[in-house]
């Protein structure tokens, strides 16, 4: 399979470990910069940065350490940004329960995962007990 050639000057992927609050800030700043280089508008930049804040905080609060990758995304002519956050934490026991939308019942201040899903266009989560959790989420340019 031929990979599509990278557009000249397109930002490349960023990755770094997530272990502390400082890394949450770094993740927010990094994704904002990359998304801005890709041409996302002001509002979307904030929305993407907020989603990244939610999932990286999750790692810091519940899994203590993990890893984040931020890179451009392409699919049939549309462009966007994909963020993957992986941790080696205890894993989520009941994924369905964790992903339940507490929004309407006002319990939305718990895990940031359902919230992050609402902010992004695509959202995938894989988790096993003792195997850690990987969240992959993408936002496409409008």
């Amino acid at each position, binding site marked *: 399979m031929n990979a599509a050639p990278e557009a000249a000057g397109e930002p490349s992927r960023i990755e770094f470990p997530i272990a502390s*609050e400082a890394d949450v800030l770094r993740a*927010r700043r990094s994704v904002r910069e990359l998304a801005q280089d890709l041409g996302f508008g*002001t509002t979307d930049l904030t*929305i993407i940065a907020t989603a990244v804040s*939610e999932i990286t905080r999750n790692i810091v609060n519940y899994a203590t350490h993990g890893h984040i990758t931020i890179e451009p995304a392409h699919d049939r002519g549309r462009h966007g940004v994909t963020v993957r956050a992986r941790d080696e934490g205890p894993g989520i026991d009941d994924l369905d329960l964790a992903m339940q939308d*507490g929004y309407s019942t006002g319990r*939305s201040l718990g895990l940031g995962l359902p919230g992050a899903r609402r*902010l992004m266009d695509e959202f995938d989560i894989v988790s096993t007990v003792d195997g850690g959790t990987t969240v992959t989420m993408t936002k496409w340019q409008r």
Partner: protein
Amino acid sequence: MEVPILRFGSYLVASVQGELSDDDLQRLSENLTTKVRATRSRGVVIDLTVLDVVDSFATRILRSLTQMIRLLGAEAVVVGIQPGVALAMVQLGLTLDKTPTALDFEDGMRYLDELLEDQPRERRA
């Protein structure tokens, strides 16, 4: 990170400069408590203009802060939430509960003026 608290008449303005950690909140709470008491402040404006992200963690912190201010007998108003931040917050389902909001620092002060002009000062022991 130190949050500067300025005094304008009987109001205080806390200008949040960036991300607030739990330690920062602790310090801000203590500083605000001291200053509200010392200046017998009737209202506190919390200015979020510089914040580019308000997530569930920050919202929880803001709620504690405004609750504390009300327990001290003062009014609290949150100002400076930017359009993108407001959109992200509502999409996340975050609210500031009963805390009033205003557009910016000036509107926040005007709000406090309007709110408090009919209320006589309580006698403090």
